C-alpha cells in the first residue's frame, strides 16, 4: 500500500465529478462546533461547551484521556449522538436539522471496527456505495479502487470474519470512503494495529487527503500519529477543550518538543 494506489486515486478523482470539492459553511469551515454540550440520560456530562472550527481540507486531531468526551463529540458530528445544547454543523449542514444531508457527505470509522463478518470485503463496500445512492457498476468500480488503495485487493472476496483485525480496519476505512466524503471522522483509527498496519493506514490517509482533499477529524491516543497526520490539534479533557493549535504551537506553549509532554501538561492542568 505504498505508491501503487496513487494512480488509482487519480483515476477515481478524474472520474468522479465533485470529488475533492469542499462543501463548507458560510465562514469557510467544514466542521463547526459552537458551545456544544452533551449530557447522557445517566447524568454523565460527556461534552461541556466545546467550540471549535475545522477548515476544509484540514486534518484536525482530538486528543484526550479516556472518557474525556472525544468519542461523544465525534458521535455528535457523525449524527449518532444527539447534543443536549449548542450547535454543530458538518459540510455546511446542521447535524440535528439535516442529518441525512450530513450523512451524504461524511465517512465514519468508529473506534471499534464496524463490518459485517459474514460479508466479503467487496460486498460490504458495494452495499455501502449503493446505500449512498451509487449504481451497482459505479459502486463496484469504486470498491475495486478503494480496496486497491488500502491494499486489500487480494482478499476482496474473503469473508470479513476471516480477516485480521488490521485488515478489517482497513476495510472499514475503505467503506467509509465509498461516498468520497467531504469530511471523514476517524475515532482512534489505528487502535490495536501493529506498527506496520498503522504505517499502512497513515499512508492511505495521507494519499486520500492529498488526492481527494478530504477534511479529516480524528481522535487518537498516539502522539506520533497526531504529530504526523494532523495540521491542528485540540486537547479535550473532562468534556472541555483545554488547548488548541498546530503541533508546533502547542509544543512551544508547553516548552517541549514532545507532544506527549504537551498532552500531559494540559490534561494534568485540567485535572
Amino acid at each position, binding site marked *: 500500500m505504498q505508491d501503487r494506489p496513487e494512480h488509482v486515486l487519480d483515476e477515481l478523482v478524474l472520474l468522479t465529478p465533485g470529488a475533492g470539492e469542499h462543501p463548507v459553511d458560510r465562514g469557510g469551515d467544514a466542521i463547526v462546533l459552537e458551545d456544544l454540550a452533551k449530557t*447522557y440520560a445517566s447524568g454523565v456530562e460527556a461534552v461541556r461547551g466545546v467550540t471549535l472550527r475545522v477548515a476544509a481540507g484540514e486534518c484536525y486531531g482530538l486528543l484526550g484521556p479516556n472518557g474525556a468526551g472525544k468519542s461523544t463529540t465525534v*458521535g455528535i458530528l*457523525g*449524527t*449518532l*449522538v*444527539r447534543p443536549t445544547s449548542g450547535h454543530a454543523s458538518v459540510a455546511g449542514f446542521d447535524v440535528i436539522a439535516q442529518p*441525512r*444531508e450530513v*450523512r*451524504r457527505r*461524511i465517512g*465514519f470509522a*468508529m473506534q*471499534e*471496527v*464496524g*463490518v*459485517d*463478518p*459474514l*460479508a466479503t470485503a467487496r*460486498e460490504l463496500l458495494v*452495499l*455501502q456505495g*449503493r*446505500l*449512498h*445512492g*451509487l*449504481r451497482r457498476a459505479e459502486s463496484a468500480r469504486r470498491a475495486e479502487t478503494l480496496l486497491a488503495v488500502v491494499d486489500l485487493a487480494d482478499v476482496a472476496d474473503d*469473508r470479513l470474519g476471516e480477516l485480521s483485525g488490521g485488515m478489517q480496519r482497513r476495510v*472499514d476505512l475503505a*467503506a*467509509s470512503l465509498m461516498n468520497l466524503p467531504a469530511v471523514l471522522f476517524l475515532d482512534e483509527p489505528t487502535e490495536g494495529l501493529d506498527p506496520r498496519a498503522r504505517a499502512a493506514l497513515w499512508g492511505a490517509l495521507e494519499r486520500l487527503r492529498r488526492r481527494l482533499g478530504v477534511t479529516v477529524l480524528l481522535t487518537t491516543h498516539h502522539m506520533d500519529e497526531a504529530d504526523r497526520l494532523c495540521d491542528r490539534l485540540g486537547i479535550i479533557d473532562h468534556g472541555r477543550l483545554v488547548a488548541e493549535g498546530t503541533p508546533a504551537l502547542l509544543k512551544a506553549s508547553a516548552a517541549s518538543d514532545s507532544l506527549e509532554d504537551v498532552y500531559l501538561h494540559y490534561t494534568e492542568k485540567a485535572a
Partner: protein
Amino acid sequence: MTAPASLLLAMRSIVQFPRNPILLGFSLVPVLMMFLVFGALFEGVTRLPGFPTGNYFEYLAPTAILLTTVPGIGNGAVALAGDFQSRYVYKLLTAPISIGAIVLGRLLGDSVRLCAQAIAVLGLAIALGAHVETGIPGAALMILLGTLLGVVTFGVITANLALRTHDAAAVQAILPMAYLLIFLTSAYQQPEQIDSPVMRTIVDANPVEYVLRPMRDLMLSGYDWPGLVLGLGVILALGLIGIPLTVRNYRSVYR
C-alpha cells in the same frame, strides 16, 4: 435508477443467512423432527369421529408452517443483535437512509427466507401424503399468513429484545418461548377435543389461533373468508402495534 435501501438490505439478509450453516440447520431441523415425531404420535386422532382428515400430516401442516415461521423469525433478530455486536449497524446508521428502510429491509429479507423454509416444510407434508385442498393459491396464502404472523408476533418481540440488549445470546435464549405461542392453540388437536376449560380459554385468547384456523381450512376444506379476514385483521392489529414500536426502539440507538 438505484434500488431502494430496504431492498438492498433485504438482499443482504437473504445472502447472509445461508452463510451461517448452524443457524440454517437449526432453523429447519427441529421443525422437521417435530413434524415427523408429532405426526407419528398423534396419528391415532384421525380415527376419532368428526376428525376432518384421515392423514394427520395434513392436519399438522399449517402448524408445521407456523413452527417454521414464528420461531424462525427470531433468527432475524439474532442477526440484528449480531449487527450491534459487530457494530456494523453504526455503518448503516451513518448512511443516508432512514431507520424505516433498515427495519423494512430486515423484515423483507427475513420474510423471503421464512417463505422459502415454509415451502420446504409444506413440500415435506405433501411428500408424506398431505394434500392442499385449495391448491397452489391456498398454499401460497397459507405461507403468507404464517410468515406475516411470525413477523408481527415473535418477530416484533425478538427484534425489540435485540434492540434493547444488543445481545444475540439473549435473543437466542427466548427463541424456545415461540413454541408456547403455537402449543397454546389447536395446533395438534381440534378445538372441540380440548377438554380443559382453562386451556380452551387460553387457546381462544391466543391471537395465533385466529390465524391458524383459516390456515387449516385452506389445507383441509377451502376458503373460510370470514376466518381469513379475521386472521388478517389480527395480523394487521398486531403489526400496527408492534412495527411502530420496533421503529421507535430502533431510533433509541441514536443516543
